[in-house]
């Protein structure tokens, strides 16, 4: 065997390929009729052709399918012909008994190929074009065979024997049929045998399933693809394929292959697919990892890697990981489950620097996304390795190291003028910088980038970043790296979102880039905590000369420039992966029963939470492209959020969830879920939000410190505040604070949010001075770190605190300041809520200001009703009612009442004219009560009912008055005794936390 060393990456001829060749031979048998013998119709013929095409491209496993798998698939596509086809394949395979038979077989194959001079062939003659896909496949097979040594041919022969034997042992009917073709009675006999077998198989299947259930219970989320999960099992069952038509059959056969893999003996018929099929497989795995995040089980993947390593020792394990890391591209998957890789990484780099076999073999030859640089010397791969390493460092949370390595990569690729790598590296650095912020990194950035940034240190880091991005974009465009171009456009859109001020380099502060979370005044609903949106650095106070570019239109414009990608992605080298994925999907669809999608079990956990099923058609667009396009939708959603349009943001988020859920990474998917749930909470109330949260949790729970967890805490906090569970609210708030300051770094966004919530909790507890103190310090912080939106929010909160504490006059300037912030930054919704607060302040200054308040309120109403959430609307309604009631021109009797327990001083004036149109007041109140019902906001509800009761009282409707009064009482009671309502979610949250 020493003589026959498989050259790495060689296209080795295997039994599976031989049987595919046999099928191709059937498909394109050199006959004169347009539809060759066994086929009765053109469509049948074409179906086989499609199937063969898919076989040569599909990449759902690293291993080639066994003969019985092939036979099963043939059954699916063959229809009436399946016997003929399978018989032909099996008999042809078993007729290969001496090397000469193989020779003759391949000679025969050569005849199916039309020669270069076959111009004179008739129209209806089926001859394979040597340059077609199948033709290429055949040619490669023939070439590979011709290169074989005699020993190699002998091995092939042995392998074919094993390959056939396995299939025969698993479905005995074939053997019987082969022994005697004519025997009808034998056929029935074999059926008897099958019946027995079926019984056995059924039992085994049951057992297997029970086992599977058990394992599923233990590892509570199994999102990994079936092929992998099956590898973990250790039962070998080769089910009779006829009895199990659907996925089960496939499953069990892959069990068998899994088992076979376990004890791979060198002579056993275990064969890897072709190189690019394996690459496609790895890419799919990378996609899967990205999609499922850390729920992707390490063990299963580890197993696959080990097998791969055993079968193809020329692929280093770290290579493969690096590879996957690279394949997953610039969208940065979470690699937390491979911590040891980092350790290997360094030493591996040295190795790669010297040997570097891997990159040369794989990247250069077979359809790598990468444009191989002109002089492909050994260093050409070194920078790629560096790039990968840098990206990995970043994933594992060593931004500093990552930056070092990436800087090195920049240096090396500049040195070797590897522009492609440079463009990628720059993009990676941009991503890194924008993710982590770089107060600490400015020193590192300085020197190596000076050639690129001629202005050097005089520019702020933000600007350097911008320049880097521009450079990367330019390079990508000139090198026609479509994906990178699109990714860079996305990054530019992010920049636009981050309120990039080109006119103000000097006012930048070299501090961390923070993420915004847009919070609505008082309503405290977080419309978006979007990772994609970065806060800019800006000195306090709006300047007249600033140019603001938060307008969603601009963002969309930038995004649109990345869209041509979809139409053009096919020009790129990565088509083969698309083909591969498409073929895999096609083959998988074969296994599904026709028609009834409802019955198919396989789209279990993944698609359940996705209510939109119309995306079941396999798409030919590669996942990475889909992902890019998808994230552009996320950007749009965020842009609209900032602008303040809830519905538009929701539409974009929904579009994303609908169309790109399959391609999205887990973090993006989580984000979109968060957005949608927040939207639900704001517009539909907690009940639905929590229901949605539950499904989301099922999907994403395993991600620790996830957005989902934060969202849960946020929702819990708000509900606790509304219900009056102040202790719980404080507890949740503290938890948030803990989450904010993790080991690695302080998440400013979360920190501000936590202290904001703290202030609001204090406010709800009527500890005004403390609340004011917290809010004040928070404002100081926001000011210091230039968190503009937060500043506006905190200012608004301060105004509210002062209003509630009875110092409306003190509150007024805060509200005004907040308003001016909002105006400057186009934060329309926040501005509307600031206006509302201002109206409330005016109202609380005295009844003579009611008119001013009303005018303000009416000005803000379109915005509030159009885009505001439930609470905001309710508040607006109540305020409006109060305005009417307190308007001196509105009614004569003047009532001054102190609402107990709330501490709210309410002046109600009762004017005679009011009695004429009581609905003017009652309508908004009823609406407010309705909307608040969903939020369980006891405090406001109590107020609304109180007002209603008064109105009814004045109207002389005692029954309705009593009703309203009792509702009021109920709400006040439940506010005072919050623990009456049991809450399943909060208990388990606290346990979890």
């Amino acid at each position, binding site marked *: 065997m020493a003589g026959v060393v498989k050259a790495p990456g060689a296209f080795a001829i295997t039994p599976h390929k031989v049987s595919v060749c046999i099928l191709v031979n059937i498909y394109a048998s050199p006959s004169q009729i347009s539809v060759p013998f066994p086929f009765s119709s053109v469509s049948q013929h074409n179906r086989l052709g499609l199937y063969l095409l898919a076989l040569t491209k599909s990449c759902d496993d690293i291993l080639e399918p066994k003969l019985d798998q092939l036979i099963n698939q043939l059954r699916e596509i063959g229809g009436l012909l399946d016997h003929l086809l399978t018989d032909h394949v099996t008999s042809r395979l078993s007729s290969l008994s001496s090397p*000469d038979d193989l020779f003759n077989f391949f000679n025969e194959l050569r005849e199916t190929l039309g020669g270069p001079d076959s111009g004179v062939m008739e129209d209806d003659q089926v001859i394979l074009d040597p340059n077609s896909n199948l033709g290429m496949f055949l040619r490669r097979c023939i070439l590979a065979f011709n290169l074989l040594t*005699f020993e190699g041919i002998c091995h092939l022969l042995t392998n074919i024997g094993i390959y056939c034997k396995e299939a025969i042992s698993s479905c005995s009917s074939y053997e019987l049929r082969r022994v005697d073709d004519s025997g009808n009675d034998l056929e029935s006999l074999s059926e008897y045998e099958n019946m027995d077998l079926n019984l056995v198989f059924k039992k085994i299947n049951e057992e297997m399933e029970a086992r599977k259930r058990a394992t599923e219970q233990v590892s509570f989320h199994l999102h990994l693809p079936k092929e992998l999960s099956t590898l973990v099992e250790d039962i070998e069952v080769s089910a009779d394929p006829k009895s199990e038509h659907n996925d089960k059959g496939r499953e069990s056969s892959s069990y068998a292959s899994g088992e076979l893999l376990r004890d791979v003996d060198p002579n056993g018929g275990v064969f890897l697919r072709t190189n690019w099929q394996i690459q496609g497989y790895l890419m799919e795995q990378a996609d899967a990892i990205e999609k499922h995040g850390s729920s992707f089980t390490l063990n299963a993947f580890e197993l696959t890697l080990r097998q791969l390593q055993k079968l193809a020792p020329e692929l280093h394990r770290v290579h493969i990981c690096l590879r996957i890391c690279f394949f997953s591209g610039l969208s940065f998957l979470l690699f937390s489950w491979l911590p040891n890789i980092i350790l290997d990484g360094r030493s591996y780099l040295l190795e790669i620097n010297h040997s570097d076999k891997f990159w040369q073999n794989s990247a250069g030859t077979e359809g790598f996304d990468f444009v191989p640089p002109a002089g492909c010397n050994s260093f050409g791969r070194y920078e790629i390795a560096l790039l990968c390493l840098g990206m990995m460092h970043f994933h594992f949370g060593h931004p500093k190291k990552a930056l070092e390595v990436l800087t090195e990569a920049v240096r090396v690729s500049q040195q070797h003028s590897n522009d492609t790598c440079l463009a990628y590296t720059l993009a990676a650095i941009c991503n890194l910088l924008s993710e982590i912020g770089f107060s600490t990194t400015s020193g590192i950035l300085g020197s190596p980038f000076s050639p690129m940034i001629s202005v050097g240190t005089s520019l702020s880091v933000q600007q350097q970043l911008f320049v880097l991005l521009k450079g990367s974009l330019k390079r990508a465009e000139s090198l026609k790296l479509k994906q990178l171009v699109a990714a860079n456009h996305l990054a530019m859109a992010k920049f636009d979102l981050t309120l990039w001020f080109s006119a103000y380099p000097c006012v930048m502060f070299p501090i961390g880039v923070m993420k915004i979370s847009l919070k609505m005044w008082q309503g405290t609903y977080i419309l978006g905590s979007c990772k994609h949106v970065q806060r800019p650095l800006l000195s306090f106070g709006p300047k007249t000369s600033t140019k603001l570019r938060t307008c969603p239109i601009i963002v969309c414009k930038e995004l649109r420039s990345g869209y041509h990608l979809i139409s053009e992605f096919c020009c790129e080298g990565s088509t083969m992966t698309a083909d591969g994925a498409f073929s895999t999907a096609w083959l998988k669809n074969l296994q599904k029963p026709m028609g009834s999608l409802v019955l198919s079990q396989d789209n279990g956990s993944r698609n359940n939470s996705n209510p939109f099923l119309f995306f079941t058609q396999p798409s030919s667009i590669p996942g990475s492209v889909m992902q890019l396009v998808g994230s552009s939708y996320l950007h749009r959603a965020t842009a609209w959020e900032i602008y303040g349009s809830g519905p538009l943001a929701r539409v974009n988020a929904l579009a994303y969830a609908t169309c790109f859920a399959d391609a999205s990474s887990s973090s993006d998917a989580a984000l979109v879920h968060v957005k949608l749930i927040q939207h639900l909470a704001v517009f539909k109330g907690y009940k639905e939000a929590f229901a949605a949260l539950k499904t989301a949790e099922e999907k994403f729970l395993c991600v620790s410190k996830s957005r989902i967890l934060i969202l849960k805490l946020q929702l819990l906090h708000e509900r606790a505040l509304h219900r009056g569970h102040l202790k719980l609210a404080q507890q949740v708030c503290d938890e948030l604070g803990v989450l904010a300051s993790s080991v690695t770094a302080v998440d400013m966004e979360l920190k501000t949010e936590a202290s904001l919530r703290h202030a609001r909790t204090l406010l709800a507890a009527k500890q005004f001075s403390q609340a004011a103190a917290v809010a004040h310090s928070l404002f100081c912080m926001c000011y210091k770190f230039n968190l503009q939106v937060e500043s506006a929010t905190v200012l608004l909160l301060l105004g509210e605190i002062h209003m509630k504490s009875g110092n409306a006059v003190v509150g007024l300037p805060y509200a005004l300041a907040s308003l001016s912030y909002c105006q400057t930054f186009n934060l329309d919704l926040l501005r509307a809520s600031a206006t509302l607060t201002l109206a409330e302040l005016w109202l609380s200054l005295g009844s003579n200001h009611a008119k001013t308040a009303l005018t303000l309120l009416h000005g803000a109403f379109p915005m509030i009703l159009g885009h505001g959430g439930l609470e905001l609307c309710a508040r607006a309604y109540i305020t409006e009612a109060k305005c009417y009631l307190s308007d001196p021109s509105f009614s004569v009797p003047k009532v001054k009442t102190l609402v107990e327990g709330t501490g709210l001083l309410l002046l109600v004036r009762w004017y005679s004219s009011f009695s004429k149109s009581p609905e003017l007041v009652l309508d908004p109140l009823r609406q407010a009560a309705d909307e608040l019902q969903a939020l369980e906001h006891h405090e406001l509800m109590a107020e609304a009912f109180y007002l209603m009761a008064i109105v009814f009282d004045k109207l002389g409707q005692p029954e309705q008055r009593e009703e309203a009064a009792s509702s009021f009482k109920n709400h006040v009671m439940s506010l005072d005794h919050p623990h009456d309502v049991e809450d399943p979610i909060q208990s388990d949250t606290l346990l979890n936390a």
Partner: protein
Amino acid sequence: MSSKESCRIELRTAIRQLSDRCLYSASKWAAEQLVGIEQDPAKFTPSNTRFQRGSSSIRRRFRTNEITSTPPTGVAYVSTPVMEEDEAIHGDFYLLAKSYFDCREYRRAAHVLRDQTGKKSVFLRCYALYLAGEKRKEEEMIELEGPLGKSDAVNRELVSLERELATLCKNNTIDPFGLYLYGLVLKEKGNENLARKVLVESVNSYPWNWSAWSELQSLCTTVDILNGLNLSNHWMKEFFLASIYQELRMHNESLSKYENLQGMFTFSNYIQAQIAKARYSLREFEQVEVIFEDLLRNDPYRVEDMDTYSNVLYTKECFSALSYLAHRVIMTDKYRPESCCIIGNYYSLKGQHEKSVVYFRRALKLNKNYLSAWTLMGHEYVEMKNTPAAVDAYRRAVDINPRDYRAWYGLGQAYEMMGMPHYALHYFRKSVFFQPIDSRLWIAMAQCYESEQLHMLEEAIKCYKRAANCNDTEAIALHRLAILHRELDQPEEAAFYYKKDLERMEAEEREGPNIVEALMFLATHYKTQKKFEEAEVYCTRLLDYTGPERETAKSLLRGMRIAQSGFPSMDVEHFHP
């Protein structure tokens, strides 16, 4: 019967003695013959007679003369007493040395026996030293490989061994095994006469050492030398003679010897294979194939002599069988020169000459002196039109065995290709000298004479005549003879050969332009000879064919009829439509 029994006893003892002296191939050979003797079916259980395949129908079919009577007449057996064991007290050291030897640690083995004086110990020591020297020689050959893989490495132990063994010989304290080794050393040193003498002495005193016989055989290159040997009678001598007759191309004699031997050693695979080889030399391919099939059935893992089988299959163009055989030997032992040679043959048959050369090269790496591999490689090079390489390969072959007619023939061919017919002629002559019964060689030579440069048609005719006498399967010779005679304006001879050729073609039911040509010639010839009846016969036959000959035949017929009826031929022309 008794002779069979005594044979068995002799062989059993010999096997023990031979393997005790680490003469493994000789002991293997002896053991094969031992089992080859037909067992008494009454005495043995079926499990013991498992190797007895008397039931083979094929064997019966091809057993030409049923020999049941044991010793062939005319051979008086000298009952050689089985040697007494040299029962000295050397035991323990000898055992150690033998173990070393078995582990191929020759020098160590020799060292253990350095002070031992027993004959057995001395032999083993010397033999171990000899082998150590050979091993080193092989290594040096690879290390110091000169151009074209030639090397002048020598066994450095030979001198000291010769000295020691010569003294022992002089003192008459040497046993037959020592003599064998002495002969071996002498042969290596180039002292062939003395070597022959010593080896004859060795086999006379201990005939069961087949290695000694083989060495002796390699020293007997002519019949005269063979006749000059003073060999005492023993049944082992028969084996020797059979083998050497084959080597000396006395195939029929060899065959009869082997068939005689088969009477005693009925089931010997060795004899069967040798018979097959002899028949192969006699070009009786059908029978050879049957014999080898039988042999493989009985001894499926046999690799020895299978290259001959592959040659047969090659000649018969049995693609599948050849590939099957190749597959089989590959599975048995990939690194045997025979295996590689078989694969080479297979690829050659497939027309993949490059691959074929690769395997022949491997065969030669494994055994530098593998004669047929050199020759076959030469053939491959000829096919690839690489004449210099071919010439080199053939030369290596004739260096190893100057009697290899195929190599000579190949050389001739190569030179002919290079346009050097005189050289070619020389080599063809050598070739036919060693294999006068092969028509192909004669034809090749004749073609050489025929060539433009030489144009020695008389000589060519002579060669063709020889070829025609040698069962010319492709029937080239007769045709060429006819043509040559025609060209030399010897119509009688030409007609004779045309007629012969025609008869032959009719017998073999062949079609083709040759028939038409022969008919045409004969018709015109007989017409000019005024033998109108014969001419008419040929003309009418010609009418069965299409083409211009048919018209000519018609006009001939017409002319003949006119001539017969006495009309002037002018009128025929006149009346011709």
